């Protein structure tokens, strides 16, 4: 039998749970826990420079590795600084456990120094939360927190720990709980066989089918199974932004991603489909455009682990509640040895799709004329080439994010890492840090904009302290490009506060932290700069690439329209 203080229990539990990294920031209410961390070396603590960065780093780590990320902060401002990161993880269903110090129990409710009801503040953006009421609860509460965060539809879990729960003087028996059970929580492990059969019959009979898959396939580790099923049937597939890479994008059956800035052929195919097989996707408004005009001729099969995602915005004809992996495997076994019933219709369908592809070929963007500023699209294509399409790419939010998603081609899941649901500027850089620590031998590139980068640039200091060699490519359009684009389209180019005056000299800024920065303005400087940046995997290099501020992201769905209503350039629309 082992007697430990609450603080030591936390440190021990994290070790027993196999947690490798904690991203955190200390403060009064968390100091007993920090002292316990100091006296062990199994769990590594990364000191960030802002608690929001801790959540994004833990989030990036979780997305790339599939394991829950861990955050440790103090009460009050430490805890409230995590809110944006928790909401980001919640919207994208990322497993994360956030441990918050809290003022001592007897002070709660008295507006004590650095007291915030963080459980109350985060209630709508967590999967669940706990307040520790007695030190002996710590092992089971933490076990439940990790179990809930990672199982079913994953999500962030907050654990609020009053300071007296971790007092070093009070010791209790510690046993690592190998398993916990919650009577009210039983995530489904497989789909309803009858429904899966129904879906497969529809799939085999379809004349104009499209697979539409999302983050659930990536989180559910079901990419291989999905690829197998899609290739057996020979049907086209489009993914959501969150689902990028679940099916190899360079394959002929891939139509790219869909939605507001999705590919022309993906949106056209969706609109004209007679069957949509949605797996681990949630028919979000950035995908469907106007739901009343959404895919007018399609029957819909919807597979999701979360029943509340099904028929939320678009009614499913065949709902299937279950994890992507097991449902897809069952579909494969039902498809085995059978052929689609309408081969001629399918051939015709592919001809139409190829027609849509050909319409846009070579017309995606206007390359820069000599002497003109670089186009952001060409920069992404160059990054893709320089990294052979194999890097982990994180992004911030804005035009650069959409360009990264459009022009970098991903063949593997978990490689394109972006804040899809919340659209959090500031996400990309700290997320890249979290990934690089888990994949030190891989290239990890943060594609950012000068607006977004300035929201989390203090983390350069963290990278310096821990030698985190991420690459940062700043698509510097000297403006909040995406905002400016909307102002061009909807506000007669009245650019209210979407310009970026007084930008820092990024080169000097980066050098102040002891890193290399290269400013790129001309096309001929781009490739050498990329070569230099990717020469050493362990070195942080920042490329400040000046790109054309007038560029817009296209296609762009027309508001209130259907999937196929798109602007294709500043002058063309469907």
């Amino acid at each position, binding site marked *: 039998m082992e007697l430990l203080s609450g603080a030591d229990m936390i440190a021990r539990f994290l070790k027993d749970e196999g947690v490798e990294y904690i991203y955190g920031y200390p403060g009064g209410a968390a100091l007993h826990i920090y002292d316990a961390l100091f006296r062990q070396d199994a769990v590594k603590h990364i000191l960030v420079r802002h608690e929001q960065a801790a959540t994004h780093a833990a989030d990036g780590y979780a997305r790339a590795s599939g394991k829950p990320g861990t955050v440790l902060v103090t009460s009050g401002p430490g805890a409230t600084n995590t809110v944006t990161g928790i909401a980001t993880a919640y919207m994208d269903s990322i497993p994360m456990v956030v441990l918050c110090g809290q003022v001592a129990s007897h002070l709660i409710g008295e507006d004590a120094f650095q007291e915030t009801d963080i459980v109350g503040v985060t*209630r709508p953006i967590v999967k669940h939360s706990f*307040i520790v009421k007695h030190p002996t609860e710590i092992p089971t509460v933490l076990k439940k927190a990790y179990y809930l965060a990672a199982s079913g539809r994953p999500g962030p879990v907050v654990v609020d720990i009053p300071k007296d729960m971790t007092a070093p003087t009070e010791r209790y028996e510690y046993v690592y709980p190998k398993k916990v059970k919650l009577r*009210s*929580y039983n995530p489904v492990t497989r789909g309803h066989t009858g429904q899966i059969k129904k879906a497969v019959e529809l799939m085999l009979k379809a004349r104009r089918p499209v697979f539409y898959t999302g983050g659930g396939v990536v989180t559910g580790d079901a990419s291989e199974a999905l690829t197998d099923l899609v290739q057996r049937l020979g049907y086209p597939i489009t993914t959501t932004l969150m689902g990028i890479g679940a099916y190899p994008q360079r394959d002929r059956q891939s139509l790219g991603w869909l939605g507001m800035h999705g590919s022309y052929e993906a949106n056209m195919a969706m609109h004209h489909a007679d069957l949509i097989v949605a797996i681990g996707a949630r028919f979000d408004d950035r995908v469907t455009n106007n739901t009343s005009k959404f895919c007018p001729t399609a029957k819909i099969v919807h597979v999701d682990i979360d*029943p*509340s995602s099904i028929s939320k915005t678009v009614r499913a004809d065949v709902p299937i509640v279950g994890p992507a992996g097991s449902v897809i495997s069952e579909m494969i076994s039902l498809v085995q040895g059978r052929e689609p019933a309408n081969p001629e219709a399918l051939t015709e369908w592919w001809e139409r799709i190829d027609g849509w592809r050909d319409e846009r070929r070579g017309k995606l963007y206007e390359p820069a004329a000599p002497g003109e500023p670089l186009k952001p699209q060409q920069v992404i294509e160059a990054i893709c080439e320089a990294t052979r399409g194999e890097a982990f790419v994180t992004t911030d939010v804005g035009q650069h994010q959409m360009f990264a998603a459009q022009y970098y081609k991903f063949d593997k899941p978990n490689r394109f890492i972006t804040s899809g649901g919340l659209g959090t500027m500031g996400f990309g850089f700290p997320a890249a840090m979290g990934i690089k620590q888990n994949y030190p031998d891989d290239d990890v590139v943060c594609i950012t904009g000068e607006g977004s980068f300035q929201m989390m640039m203090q983390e350069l200091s963290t990278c310096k302290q821990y030698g985190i060699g991420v690459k940062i490519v700043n698509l510097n359009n000297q403006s909040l490009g995406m905002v400016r684009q909307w102002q061009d389209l909807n506000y007669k180019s009245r650019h209210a506060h979407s310009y970026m005056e007084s930008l820092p000299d990024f080169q000097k800024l980066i050098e102040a932290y002891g890193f290399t920065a290269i400013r790129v303005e001309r096309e001929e400087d781009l490739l050498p700069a990329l070569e230099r940046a990717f020469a050493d995997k362990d070195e942080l290099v920042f490329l400040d690439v000046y790109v054309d501020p007038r560029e817009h992201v296209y296609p762009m769905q027309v508001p209130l329209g259907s999937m196929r209503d798109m602007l294709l350039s500043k002058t063309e629309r469907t």
Partner: protein
Amino acid sequence: MRHIISILMENEPGALSRVVGLFSQRNFNIESLNVAPTDDATLSRLTVTTVGDDRVIEQITKHLNKLIDVVKLVDLTEGNHVERELMLVKVKALGAQRDEVKRTVDIFRAQIVDVTPSVYTVQITGDAAKLDAFLQAMSPIGVLEVARTGVSGISRGDKVLSL
């Protein structure tokens, strides 16, 4: 359509605020709500009446079920059920009004539970429509104060909501 949803949830601090928070967060409507412990000390029972079309009600029950603190729930309006609400009303009772109040109380099978020279306090149980009707009948005389518990309900027959 109006639905009565009964929920068994963990009798823990924070559970109630999660349920109530869900309704405001997702723009669902709450017409009435009541909550109290059950015979099992680890569980409380919460009954909420809400209004919405089938799609909304489906979303409400799915999201409630998703809350970790919610152990089980039933939409009572899907089957035969008994619905009751208790109301305490203070009404003006002066002179001739005193008899009239008394008569109406009898017609509604309500009870007078407190008396002063100028006020009767009436206790009445029934479904929400009956309580509404009583209030309407009393309004010409003068309703001074109303306290309603909100709807509670239970399904008819052998079906039970328990673990």
